C-alpha cells in the first residue's frame, strides 16, 4: 500500500509537468517516424556502380543470355523508364540480396526465349528480401508485368495472324472467309487471351536462403523495437533524476524518517516510471501498427503471441527502472546523473541494437561479445524474435531470464549503495 501511495504521488507530480509528458510520448514517436521514413526512402536496391543514370537499378539475372526474347525483355525494361536493369550472375545477386546491398532481383529462366518462340508460357521470377520496401516491390512488379504483357500481346497477336496466314495459304478457296472482320475478331481474341493467359507471367517470391531468414530485417519489425528499447532504457535516467529531485528538494529526508524500508522507497520511485514506460511502449507500438502503414513502411504487429509481447515489455521496463535505481545510488550530483546516464544508456543502446540492427553488430566478433554484456541487446533480441520471428513466450524465456538477472543486480546494488549523506 505504501508503494502504491508513493506511486500515486509521483504520477500526480509527473502529470503536472507537461514537458515531461512530451518527452515521454511524443519524442519517441517522432524519432520512429523520421527514422523509418529515412530508412524507407533509402531502400533503392543500391548498386555498386556510379552512373549518371539516376533511375533505380533493377538487378537482372539472365539465365538465357543468348536468347533474343530475353535480350528484348531486358531492353524493354530499360525503355519502360522506371528502372535501370543491371545484369549479374545468380550467385552475385543472391549474395547482394543476403547482405542487403539490394532488396530484389529478377530471374529470366534459361528456357525463356525458346518457350516464347514455340508459344509456350514462361515465368519471370522476382526475388525480394523480406525487409524490402513494399511499395517499391509493388511498383517493380507493375513495371515488369507491364513489359511482360506488352511482349506477350505482341507475340500472341503475331502468332494469331501467322496462324491465319498459314490456314489461308493451305486453303486458297477459303480466302474469302478471312475478311477484315474475321481478322479483327481474331486479333481481339488474341488480345484478350494475352491478358487472361499471358505468355510471360511474373511472380514474386521471398528469398528462401537461410542467411536471409536469419538476418530477417523487416524495417518495421526491427527499427521500432530498437527505438522502443532505446527510449525505455532512457527512462532509467528519469528514475535517477526523480530520486535526485527528492534529495535536492528536501522531501527525501522526510521520507527516510517515515516508517518505510529502503526497498519500499525505491520500489515506490520505480513503480510510476515503470507504469509510464509501459504506456510509452503501447503508444510506440500503436504508431507502428497504425501510422507506419500509411507511410508505406509496413504494418508492425505484436507478433503471434501477444502474451509474449506483453510480458517482454514489462520485463524490459522493469530492467530499465532498476537500472535507474542503480544510477541514483552511484551518482551524487545532477551532472553525474547526466554523465552516467548518457554514457551508459547511449553506448549500451548502440551495442544493444537500438540504433543499428543487431545482426549487423553481430558481424563483428568483439562487438558481438560486448553486446551480450548489455541488457538492451537481450531486450532487442526478444522483441526481434517475437515480432519478426513469431516467437512465443516460451521461446523468449531465456532472454527474459537474463533481463531479470540484470534487474536483480541493478536493484540490489541500488538499494545497498544508496545513502542520504
Amino acid at each position, binding site marked *: *500500500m*505504501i508503494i502504491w*501511495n*508513493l506511486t*500515486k*504521488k509521483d504520477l*500526480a*507530480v509527473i502529470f*503536472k*509537468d507537461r514537458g515531461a509528458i512530451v518527452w515521454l510520448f511524443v519524442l519517441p514517436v517522432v524519432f520512429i517516424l523520421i527514422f523509418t521514413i529515412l530508412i524507407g526512402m533509402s531502400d533503392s536496391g543500391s548498386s555498386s556502380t556510379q552512373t549518371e543514370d539516376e533511375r533505380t537499378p533493377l538487378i537482372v539475372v539472365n539465365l538465357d543470355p543468348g536468347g533474343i526474347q530475353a535480350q528484348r525483355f531486358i531492353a524493354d525494361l530499360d525503355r519502360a523508364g522506371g528502372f535501370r536493369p543491371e545484369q549479374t550472375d545468380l550467385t552475385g545477386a543472391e549474395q547482394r540480396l543476403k547482405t542487403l546491398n539490394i532488396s530484389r532481383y529478377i530471374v529470366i529462366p534459361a528456357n525463356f526465349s525458346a518457350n516464347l518462340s514455340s508459344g509456350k508460357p514462361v515465368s519471370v521470377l522476382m526475388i525480394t528480401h523480406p525487409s524490402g520496401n513494399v511499395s517499391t516491390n509493388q511498383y517493380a512488379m507493375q513495371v515488369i508485368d507491364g513489359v511482360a504483357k506488352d511482349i506477350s500481346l505482341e507475340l500472341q497477336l503475331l502468332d494469331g495472324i501467322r496462324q491465319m496466314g498459314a490456314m489461308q495459304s493451305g486453303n486458297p478457296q477459303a480466302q474469302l472467309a478471312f475478311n477484315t472482320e474475321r481478322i479483327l475478331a481474331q486479333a481481339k481474341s488474341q488480345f484478350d487471351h494475352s491478358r487472361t493467359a499471358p505468355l510471360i507471367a511474373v511472380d514474386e517470391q521471398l528469398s528462401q536462403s537461410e542467411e536471409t531468414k536469419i538476418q530477417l530485417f523487416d524495417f518495421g519489425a526491427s527499427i521500432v523495437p530498437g527505438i522502443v528499447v532505446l527510449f525505455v532504457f532512457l527512462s532509467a535516467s528519469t528514475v535517477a533524476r526523480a530520486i535526485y529531485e527528492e534529495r535536492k*528538494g*528536501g*522531501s*527525501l*529526508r*522526510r*521520507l*527516510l*524518517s*517515515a*516508517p*518505510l*524500508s529502503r526497498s519500499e522507497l525505491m520500489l515506490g520511485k520505480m513503480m510510476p516510471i515503470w507504469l509510464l514506460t509501459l504506456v510509452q511502449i503501447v503508444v510506440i507500438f500503436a504508431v507502428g501498427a497504425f501510422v507506419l502503414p500509411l507511410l508505406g513502411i509496413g504494418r508492425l504487429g505484436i507478433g503471434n503471441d501477444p502474451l509474449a509481447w506483453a510480458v517482454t515489455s514489462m520485463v524490459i521496463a522493469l530492467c530499465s527502472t532498476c537500472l535507474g535505481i542503480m544510477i541514483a545510488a552511484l551518482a551524487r550530483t545532477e551532472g553525474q546523473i547526466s554523465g552516467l546516464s548518457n554514457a551508459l544508456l547511449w553506448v549500451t543502446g548502440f551495442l544493444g541494437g537500438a540504433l543499428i540492427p543487431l545482426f549487423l553488430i553481430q558481424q563483428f566478433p568483439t562487438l558481438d561479445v560486448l553486446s551480450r554484456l548489455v541488457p538492451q541487446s537481450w531486450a532487442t533480441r526478444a522483441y526481434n524474435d517475437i515480432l519478426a520471428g513469431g516467437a512465443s513466450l516460451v521461446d523468449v524465456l531465456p532472454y527474459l531470464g537474463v533481463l531479470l538477472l540484470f534487474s536483480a543486480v541493478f536493484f540490489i546494488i541500488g538499494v545497498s549503495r544508496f*545513502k*542520504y*549523506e
Partner: protein
Amino acid sequence: MPDILEVDKLSKKFGDFAAVKDISFTVEEGEIFGLLGPNGAGKTTTISMLTGVIPPTSGTARIGGYDIQREPIQVKRIIGLVPQDLALYPTLSARANLNFFGSIYGLRGKELQKRVDDVLAIVALTDRQKDPIEKFSGGMKRRVNIAAGLVHQPRLLFLDEPTVGVDPQSRNHIFESVLKLNHERGMSIIYTSHYMEEVELLCNRVAIIDQGQIIALDTIKNLVAMLGGGVIYLGLRQADAALAGEIAELPAVKNAVFVPAATPTLQPVPALKGEAPASEKAEGPIIKVEAEQSQQAIVNVLAFLNERDIMITSLEILEPNLESVFLHLTGKKLRE
C-alpha cells in the same frame, strides 16, 4: 515523567570529520527540549541520526523504548520530523501533500481526512488547502511543512530550525502552534535553533551544542544563572592578574578574570550586535567581570578603577541570556 528519548554517546563521522562527538541526553515525555547552537554545530546531524535519515557511527538512542538502529520502523511510527528544508511537493496542493504524508504513516479514508483537516486548522491554512504549495508565501510553506510532520500525531516531534526565513507573523503562529501541541496534546518536542529568543520562549530545557558536543544542558533559568548578574568586559590601558584578583573581591562581583591583550592566538572578544569587538578597539588587556548584580558591580568597579587612576578604554555589558551563556562558554556568538 518517563523519558521519551534517551541518547547515549551518539557520534557521527563523515570521513575524518567528527560532526557529532559522544553526545548524551534524555528528554522527558511531554517536554519541549531545545538544541541550541550555531550553524554547523551538529544539531541537524543529531536530528538526522535520531530520525533514521543517516546511521550513527557509534552510540545509540532509544525513542519510546525502541532502539533507533534495531527497531527503526517502530521508532519512525511514533516520531515526526519537520526538516529545515521545505520537504514538500510544490506542484501539489497543501491538502494533497498532507494526504500523501499521512498515507505513508498508514492513515486511510475518513481518519486520514479528519487528521488532515485537524492539522490544517492548527497551522491556519484550511482556506488555502487546495492551492498548490508553489503559490504560497515562505511562511505559509513553513506552516504546511510543520503540518506534514504532525498529521500522524507523533509522540515525539523533531522541529529542525522551523522559522528560518519566515516572516514575523508566521513565526509567531509557529510558536503558538508549538506551545499548543505541547500544552493541549502533550506532544514531546525537540526544537533546534540558533535563535536564542525562540528557545527561551518555548523550551523547558536546553542543550547548548557546539562543534559536535553538548557544552551545557539544563533549564534556561539555571543556564542563565551561570552568568550570575551578567558579564562585564573592561578594556584597560594596563592590567594584570593581580588587578583582576582585587576586582573579584569587590561587592556585587562574582568573579574577575584577566585576559591579556588580543594576540593572534587568543579568541577576540565579541562585541554587541553591530559594534566592533572590544578587542579590536582595545589597545590593552581586558578584565572579564562576572557580576552578581550587574548595575551595582559596574558602580563598584568603576569607583575602584577611578581611585587607582586606571584608564578604561572600553566597556561592554552582556545581559544574562542564552546568547551570553553561549558566548561565555565558547567565546563565540550564536550567529556569526
